[in-house]
């Protein structure tokens, strides 16, 4: 919060507080033997209006003596001295006003009567100042906690960004080496397939690097990458890998973070198909409906296989990225029913016009 807005807020709060302060002052001043109601109200209101002079310095004094860091003696010294000075100023001001209004015939002698009440006004000034101080400390504490919250959020976002970068940079070495080994085998069996595989692998790497640099991509682009990936794995696994696709045309123009689905499809092959001697299928479906984009990645798997070495890092990462981008507006559900492992994503269907 900068000084200007702080002062503006102070001013607003003070305007609200001025009326009760004026009322209290008027009541105190008119007590029997004191001022008349008329005089008390007039001076009370004038002093209350000037009261901002007391509360504003509290803004400053609280900052030079922060309650959580300054030693107790300094806190006391600062506020006691400030309270005395400001109350004196206030009383002086009251006297001046009393002197001014005493020229009205009906208020003759008000100066003397006000003088009798100086102690009370002085005390009220001190109380007034202390109230302003406590208010200041409360709002300062709030400010600090807001700042901390904002900073924590910022660090969270930065951490996730870093994670994403690492994710993008990481092309699974296992996949790469196995693909190269497949190419090596194909060079003597079927040179033209070996060449196709080189092209596929080249395309896949280029797409991965290219998509990784964007913040958001069309689903069609991500789909292209997934298809290349599966085509490469199909060469490796042969008949063991069956691919199924149910992609609704309208879903292709949706926007989503890049490489969001790639880890899911990679998991489907690595932890699903690769663990089954007879293989199985990987099914990819996408549908845009009622402003939502629903994506399902499903694969056959062996429920008895030992848990993943990575402990589900891939899934966790996808979840974090969804959260970072969509908050509570997106969901990831894992369903392991019998011999199917299914990950369902639901996110807001964003497209170019809206984004």
């Amino acid at each position, binding site marked *: 919060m900068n000084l200007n807005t702080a002062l503006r807020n102070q001013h607003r709060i003070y305007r609200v507080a001025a009326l009760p302060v004026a009322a209290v002052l008027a009541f105190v001043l008119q007590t029997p033997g004191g001022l008349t109601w008329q005089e008390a109200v007039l001076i009370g209101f004038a002093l209350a209006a000037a009261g901002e002079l007391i509360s504003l310095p509290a803004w400053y004094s609280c900052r030079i003596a922060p309650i959580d860091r300054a030693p107790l003696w300094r806190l006391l010294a600062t506020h006691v001295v400030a309270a005395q000075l400001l109350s004196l100023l206030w009383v002086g001001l009251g006297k001046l006003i009393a002197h001014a209004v005493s020229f009205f015939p009906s208020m003759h002698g008000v100066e003397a009567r006000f003088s009798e009440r100086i102690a009370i006004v002085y005390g009220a000034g001190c109380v007034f100042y202390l109230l302003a101080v406590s208010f200041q400390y409360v709002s300062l504490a709030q400010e600090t906690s807001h700042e901390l919250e904002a900073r924590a959020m910022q660090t969270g976002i930065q951490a996730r960004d870093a994670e994403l970068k690492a994710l993008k940079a990481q092309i699974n070495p*296992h996949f790469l080496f196995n693909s190269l080994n*497949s190419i090596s085998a194909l060079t003597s069996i079927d040179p033209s397939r070996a060449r196709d595989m080189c092209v596929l692998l080249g395309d896949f790497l280029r797409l991965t690097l290219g998509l990784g640099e964007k913040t958001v991509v069309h689903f069609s682009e991500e789909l292209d990458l997934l298809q290349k990936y599966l085509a490469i794995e199909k060469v490796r696994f*042969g008949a063991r890998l069956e691919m199924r696709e149910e992609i609704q045309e309208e879903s292709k123009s949706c926007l989503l973070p890049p490489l969001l689905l790639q880890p899911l499809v990679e998991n489907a092959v690595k932890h699903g198909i690769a663990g*089954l001697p007879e293989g199985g299928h990987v099914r990819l479906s996408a549908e845009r409906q009622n402003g939502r984009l629903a994506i399902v990645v499903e694969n056959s798997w062996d429920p008895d296989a030992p848990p993943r070495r990575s402990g589900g890092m891939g899934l966790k990462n996808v979840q974090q990225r969804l959260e970072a981008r969509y908050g509570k507006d997106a969901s990831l559900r894992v369903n392991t029913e019998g011999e199917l492992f299914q990950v369902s994503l639901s996110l807001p269907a964003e497209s170019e016009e809206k984004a």
Partner: protein
Amino acid sequence: MSSSLEKRWKAIIVDDEELARHVIREFLQSHAEIEIAAECANGMEAVKAVAEHGPNLIFLDVQMPKLTGFDVLELIGTDVPVIFVTAYDQYAMRAFDVHAVDYLLKPIGKDRFDAAVERAKTRLGEKMPAAADLAAAARPPQQFLERLVVKDGTKVTLIPVGKLDYAEAQDDYVALATQGKKHLKQQTIAGLEASLDPANFVRIHRSYIVNLERVVRIEPYAKDSRIAILSDGARLPVSKSGYARLKALIDERK
């Protein structure tokens, strides 16, 4: 030519990927003295083929469905030279280096392949390091066994560690008790203890490891000794030091 008569080496290729097997098959063509006795697409087939053909050399992929290369090695014993084949596994590679086991990295180069075959020939008769040690060294740090593999004749049983009730030392073997049955496995009880998660399994006696989940109660038996009673009614002796370990673990869990 006499080369066909000189096929005095029998090799088995184990890899779940056809293309990967093809590379090895092709490279072996220039080694006239080696005959390919069998090609296996998974660990179960491999265990069977080894029993059937009695090979002198095995090319063994590490990452395979159901049974990994390490599991296979554990089941076939360690008399046959094995050349491991892997794409990329930092822990496996480190384990191979530590135990001086030969391995090939995918994609496999012909020169490197030939060198490995030559070395395997000169090493015939040398024992491989114990499979359990190798597998333990290849596990990422802080990870424990998730399942045990046992062979009864040609039948292979996989026991998830969660289903292991207790293990009992019997000479050179351990008897693994699970769901009312016992399976014998050639391993020391100390070796088994080291590969099980100490948060769930505790050595309660010189000869016994128990799954903490199964312990129902502990009763005094004699001076300094107790008896652990498991949920299936089994009664296992608990030594004094075993009781201390058991108690520490239970306190930790509270």
